[in-house]
């Protein structure tokens, strides 16, 4: 089977973060990191409040949300048809379409395309799909340097770090840390940071501008993702803020876009929904500063050409068709990666993005990762428990993904086993025997979450004993906290926080 590539049949794809400890252990580390928690808390609260204002501006938000959900469900229902239509439209406009069953195949396709140009470096637009496939590492292994050009991705790359948020990947870093990373690392990759660099965001952004412009101007090959693809016309759409996307999408001669198959929408008109809901849900703006839409090589070529002279689209499966096969779980494929669910999640706020062991953190990561790569590993088996099921993620989701519903469904799968599809084949997984901790966690979690009184009592006890820094819940919560330790000193009980933050709204 071409699909399994070098990873061997049955090997889980690592979604960009190999060998990461399961959520409980990773979260335990994260909640002890005070800087991380402070950075996260400030950032998520700021975006959350702004988002609520941006959404309140549109009287028809609920209708837009219903339309967004229906566009995506409709597309998924006929995904084969729309992908074939998209392929025809892109090809007619001068592009070339490739299909990649898994990460290894996608990386191989991109590597071969880059090598064929004779170039040995590429500039990259922030893309979850290529993080998911670990493309940068694959390119590096082939002797190709891949430069991330999004400021936050640059911070992550220079810092030998991992992204911790979909939208603001360096959300866990503060200005002082960023200054240190720039000063120490920029010179190794290209233009060094100016001497005496301060930690003012303006100064830091200017250093990034100078460092990256050098790369944009000479780049011959770019790699991007896309937020949407239009089946009807073959149009690709990239939303961004900084202009690094536009640089990569328009200056190089060759553009390679790696895009998950679920990103297709039927018609150009459908974009009117997401152009309204995506910016407001993600950066909490009426509109992001730049959106680029291009269709193959455009209507005119040769002397009139505008942009790259070669365009390749790599359509990526990598677990998406397996996810599609799950009646309850397939709704995760509606996700437009706005990150609103991260910013409202009390667990994400305390644990940080790295704890999820995947490029997809937060509530969406908790349902997407175990579906894309299966629940065979401990981290994936534990992810469905990385939630309090409070429902805040569902409430903000612009495509109305019922994340709590999918979480409960996946918990059942882990606990009881049942039919799933892996690499296109229907199999029956056994109950998670190997994961004693998870089974205990699940039993306790079910008890706690089915009996809100127990949770409340446990949390209050914990809060009252705050100065003692207890690490275990008493009574029925004990087994749960054995594996999924609560933050040692939660700022306040979750339910109090909830009542205060959400004004008692369900």
């Amino acid at each position: 089977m071409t699909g399994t590539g070098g990873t061997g049949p049955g090997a889980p794809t690592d979604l960009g973060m190999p060998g990461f400890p399961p959520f409980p252990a990773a979260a335990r580390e994260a909640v002890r990191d005070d800087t991380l928690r402070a950075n996260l808390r400030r950032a998520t609260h700021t975006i959350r409040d702004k988002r609520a204002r941006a959404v309140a501006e549109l009287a028809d938000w609920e209708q837009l949300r219903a339309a967004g959900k229906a566009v995506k469900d409709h597309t998924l229902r006929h995904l084969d048809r729309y992908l074939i239509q998209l392929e025809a439209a892109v090809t007619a406009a001068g592009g070339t379409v490739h299909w990649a069953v898994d990460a290894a195949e996608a990386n191989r396709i991109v590597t071969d395309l880059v090598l064929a140009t004779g170039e040995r470096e590429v500039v990259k637009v922030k893309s979850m799909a290529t993080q998911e496939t670990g493309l940068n590492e694959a390119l590096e292994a082939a002797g190709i340097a891949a430069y991330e050009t999004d400021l936050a991705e640059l911070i992550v790359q220079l810092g030998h770090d991992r992204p911790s948020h979909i939208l603001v990947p360096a959300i866990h870093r503060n200005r002082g840390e960023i200054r240190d990373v720039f000063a120490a690392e920029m010179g190794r990759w290209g233009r060094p940071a100016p001497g005496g660099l301060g930690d003012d965001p303006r100064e830091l952004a200017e250093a990034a501008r100078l460092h990256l412009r050098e790369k944009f101007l000479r780049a011959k090959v770019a790699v991007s993702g896309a937020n949407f693809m239009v089946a009807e016309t073959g149009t690709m759409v990239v939303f961004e803020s900084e202009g690094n996307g536009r640089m990569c999408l328009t200056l190089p001669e060759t553009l390679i876009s790696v895009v998950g198959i679920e990103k297709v929408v039927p018609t150009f008109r459908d974009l009117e929904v997401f152009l309204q809901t995506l910016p407001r849900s993600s950066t909490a703006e009426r509109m992001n500063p730049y959106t680029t839409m291009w269709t193959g090589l455009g209507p005119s070529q040769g002397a009139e050409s505008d942009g790259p002279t070669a365009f390749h689209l790599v359509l990526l499966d990598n677990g998406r068709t397996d996810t599609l096969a799950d009646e309850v779980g397939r709704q995760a494929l509606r996700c437009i990666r706005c990150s609103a669910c991260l910013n409202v999640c009390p667990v994400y706020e305390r644990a940080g993005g790295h704890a999820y062991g995947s490029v997809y953190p937060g509530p969406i990561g908790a349902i997407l990762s175990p579906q894309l790569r299966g629940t065979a590993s401990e981290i994936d088996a534990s992810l469905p428990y990385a939630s309090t099921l409070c429902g805040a993620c569902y409430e903000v989701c612009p495509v109305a993904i019922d994340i709590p519903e999918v979480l409960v469904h996946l918990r059942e799968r882990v606990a009881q086993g049942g039919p799933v599809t892996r690499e296109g084949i229907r199999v029956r997984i056994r109950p998670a025997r190997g994961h004693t901790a998870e089974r205990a966690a699940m039993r306790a979690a079910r008890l706690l979450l089915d009996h809100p009184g127990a949770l409340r009592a446990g949390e209050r006890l914990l809060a009252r004993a705050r100065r003692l820094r207890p690490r275990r819940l008493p009574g029925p919560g004990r087994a749960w906290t054995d594996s999924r330790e609560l933050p040692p000193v939660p700022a306040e009980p979750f339910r109090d926080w909830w009542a205060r933050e959400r004004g008692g709204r369900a």
Partner: protein
Amino acid sequence: MSGREQILGRIRRALADAGPAPEIPRDYLRTHGDRTPDATADLLAAHLTEYRATVHRAAGDAVAPLLARLLAERGARSVLVPAGLPPHWLAAADQVRIDDRSDSTPYELDAVDSVVTGCALAIAETGTIVLDGGPGQGRRRISLVPDHHICVVRVPDQVVDSVPQAVALLDPTRPLTWISGPSATSDIELDRVEGVHGPRTLEVVLLTAQ
């Protein structure tokens, strides 16, 4: 089996049990307000300003002295001129003119101080201008690489209220660039900083006929 056939086959098997596709409800609003053309232009100006673009107004021939002044204030020595830009717009400007050509290199574009373009349309509710490569707009890169972009919007004919109205008017086969304020980042502690990679200064001229 090719990757294509594998993926399509998996999709078909995955959907074997699926019910009918939902209808897409279109009962969301076409616009978010009932405005006069003047009110729409004012809203566009307000939203552009909020995203730290600078908005100017001019009527008829006054556009030429205004553009000359804006370029002079900027200290621009050269200006990129897309094909089809109305010649009288730059009649009073004395900067060196650089034509938008397909064979100019990124380095050449980087050496230009300013660019003046028209647009396809502008959206008041979001403070967005859209360029589609039509006459007077040039290639996508010319409104990106120079650090100073002046965009002229004809008011009221090029201004729409809302995103749905804009989408209905645009041609998806043309390269489209939607611009809402100058390039910006909020990646460092969520402090907004303008002009990371795109133009650090965006000036929009709302041009009425007389």
